[in-house]
């Protein structure tokens, strides 16, 4: 088989493969909107990250401060499969948490989550809005 035909065959094979990717188009909400939409908000650190069999990502988050509801010192958080935050162990975040009917906590990109080193305005909004 000539190189050109080999390349064409490889390209056809690649195009025929089912895509398994996910992604979304979104912008981050204002901290006020994120606070309104979340069931709880937490400042702390991502302790560990594990990927499940279905490609889902779950991480353990060490909670240092919380708003809207009192949270335990460690919580398990499910990352969105479609619009993932992409957690990294050791990262410090303000997380806007949602609680699905199935229980637990979940988050996603475009829910207002912000790295702590960029969270000054968000923390101000959280403290002002909740009287802390």
């Amino acid at each position, binding site marked *: 088989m000539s190189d050109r035909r080999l390349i064409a065959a490889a390209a056809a094979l690649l195009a025929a493969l089912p895509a398994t*990717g996910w*992604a*979304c*188009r*979104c*912008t981050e*909400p204002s901290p006020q909107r994120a606070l309104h939409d979340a069931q709880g908000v937490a400042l702390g650190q991502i302790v560990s990250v594990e990927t499940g069999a279905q490609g889902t990502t779950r991480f353990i988050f060490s909670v240092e401060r919380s708003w809207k509801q009192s949270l335990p010192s460690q919580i398990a958080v499910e990352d969105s499969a*479609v619009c993932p935050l992409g957690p990294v162990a*050791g990262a410090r975040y303000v997380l806007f948490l949602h609680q699905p009917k199935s229980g637990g906590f979940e988050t996603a990109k475009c829910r207002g989550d912000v790295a702590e*080193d960029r969270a000054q305005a968000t923390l101000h909004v959280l403290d002002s809005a909740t009287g802390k």
Partner: protein
Amino acid sequence: MVSINIPSAGHTGPAANSGWQWLPYTDADFLATLHRAMHVIDSKIKGYQPCNAAFQTLPRGRSFAQVWNDPTVWISFDPKNDGHNYGATLGQEVTITRFSLRMGLWTTAATLVHELAHVNGADGFSHAAEGTLRSCLLQGLEDPTIVGSIDNVARGQAFV
């Protein structure tokens, strides 16, 4: 051309995932907006060489026209109307939000091009998908903050 998920198409989109839905279009106004956006893409963007070239640099390597002409790519509807979610993609399955459709044909067209870049392999953490708008006659619709470009810079600075 890509296929539209309408009830008569008999297509079943993916199950709801992470709050996103892939539903058939049942609202005539939203379907009309989608058709207008698709007409702009079909008549102005599909044959635009820089757009095709930009798509060929994405991981799956197909030109924009090749992706656009693929009837196994489905466009569905998501009722989200929250002001900051435009659309999502799972494999070959694209969904466009009510919010995006309410913003009109240009926002819908930009969201379609962005999501088709994901169909062509653009990842969800970089600005690659949104960046194709610059090459696809939709530069005015490009949002520099969309999906991760700024977040990734910050993440890199914090954890490298």
